[in-house]
């Protein structure tokens, strides 16, 4: 059951800041979506015991050989904070 506590937890896992005022609305919207997802409960795993449920196969991966990569300056152009060829972030450890 979705509630504001679970929403706070999901927001934390998702690294999304959510205003307190928006939490109730999100709970209501997400509950309607989760109800839709719950239609899957009608399917039982035994019904599909011969199915693997593994998702995509990656059959065509390239050989693990090092190749020339992007130019560092070119990549850094899109970063908002950078210095001496590095990304700059707020201080993490005091």
């Amino acid at each position, binding site marked *: 059951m979705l509630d504001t506590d679970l929403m706070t937890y999901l927001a934390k896992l998702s*690294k999304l800041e959510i205003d307190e005022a928006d939490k109730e609305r999100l709970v209501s*919207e997400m509950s309607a*979506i989760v109800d839709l997802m719950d*239609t899957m409960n009608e*399917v039982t795993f035994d019904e599909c015991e011969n199915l693997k449920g593994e998702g995509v196969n990656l059959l065509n991966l390239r050989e693990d050989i090092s190749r020339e990569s992007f130019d560092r300056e070119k990549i850094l152009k899109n970063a908002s904070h950078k210095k001496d060829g590095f990304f700059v972030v707020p201080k993490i450890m005091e």
Partner: protein
Amino acid sequence: MELCDKSILMLRQMLDQKEISSVELTTYYLDRIKEFDHQIESYITVCEEEALKRAALADQRIAKGESKSLTGIPISIKDNLCLEGVRTTCGSKMLENFIPPYHATAAQKLLAEDAVILGKVSMDEFAMGGSTQTSYYKKTKNPYDMTRVPGGSSGGSAASVAAKLAAASLGSDTGGSIRQPASFCGVTGMKPTYGAVSRYGLVAFASSFDQIGPLAHSAKDCASILNTIAGHDIHDGTSAKHKIDFEAKLGNPIKGLKLALPKEFFGDGIDSQVKEAVLKAAAEYEKMGAELIEVSMPSLKYAIAAYYLIASAEASSNLARYDGIKFGYCTPHAKTYEERITRTRKEGFGEEVKRRILLGTYALSSGYYDAYYKKALYIQDKIKAEYRSIFESCDAMITPTAPTPAYKIGEIEGDPVKMYLADICTVTVNIAGLPAISTTCGYDNDGMPIGMSVVGKAFDDAAVIQVADAFETNFKTQNPRL
């Protein structure tokens, strides 16, 4: 026939016979964009200078007799395909200032033939939507009725082709995002087999479903574009080594083909005019000598839930990269590292994107994984098995592309569940990784286009194109009045 009504194949002939130059053709389309796009709002970025430069290069190539199928043809591309040096927004504030340092493989392949990229067209934010009304930039209108949505997420692509503001367009399709807008805007749009076209440089949404494909005036034009952009690419681990000739079956007889009509796709939720138009089209195939076979896909009722679960789970992971550090929007209101990330994501993402990230996180979190994500993967396998069984006895399948024609702007976009349910006719194709094309098969009482989808076996894209083309050859389309 006006210049803008001509197919890629006709324009190819005109260019090669020097009846028109690519610079003239490109200028013609750029003028149309200036004249009409303020109403349609399909383009986020018009690359006028670069397009004219490319057109001049195309003309040199044509003069040397070295033209390829798309040389000098003006094309728009969805704004989630990277183009080096050109802003690529993905319809989001998050990428407002993002200038890619490389070309997407599909775009690179267009440019390698000196196709002319006119600009980047609008889309639902991060391709999450079916109306193009969640775009942070242009909320594109339907050229057949400006009060209606063009569909989505490739709504800018579909509208730019329908309004003749490009000869064709590239879009992407994760749950119907090429086919549904093609249906709403009366153009032809194809999602090829999963793995046919490299997604390198396509902004990732749900990687196990995402495919790039064309929107154009006909199935033949789609085939021509796909032959250019498809092929194995070491930069995309899911791109297939299987070589497909998309034009291989064009013109082959329909007589003797077995076409499946899945009864669940013609049920209560489908608008009666849509049902009637698609069944009328199926009857045309019967007249051509095809055999219609009623089939069943019992798992269709779980398809929306499984699709949205898997797609959102993958999106929540894919969109973790937007942290305000490496590229994209960065909040100016943060003192700590944690604030930088969480506030950037709060301010940079729109509401629908946030909902999907939260849903995906919920589905993948401890305690819910088996109930949701794993169950969705099992349903995916069931749907694949049902398709396999249908294609054991049938060559292709015919369905409506969308339950209704284009609806009014503001009618259902505010209700996520209604929006999700509207994808019922398209998502199973992505779930099973199959090729499918949408082509116009009729118009409703308001003159809005109705789309029919042809679905085929994996890597039998040529059959899907063959079947759609056979219908188009005898069907007269109606142009929107701008």
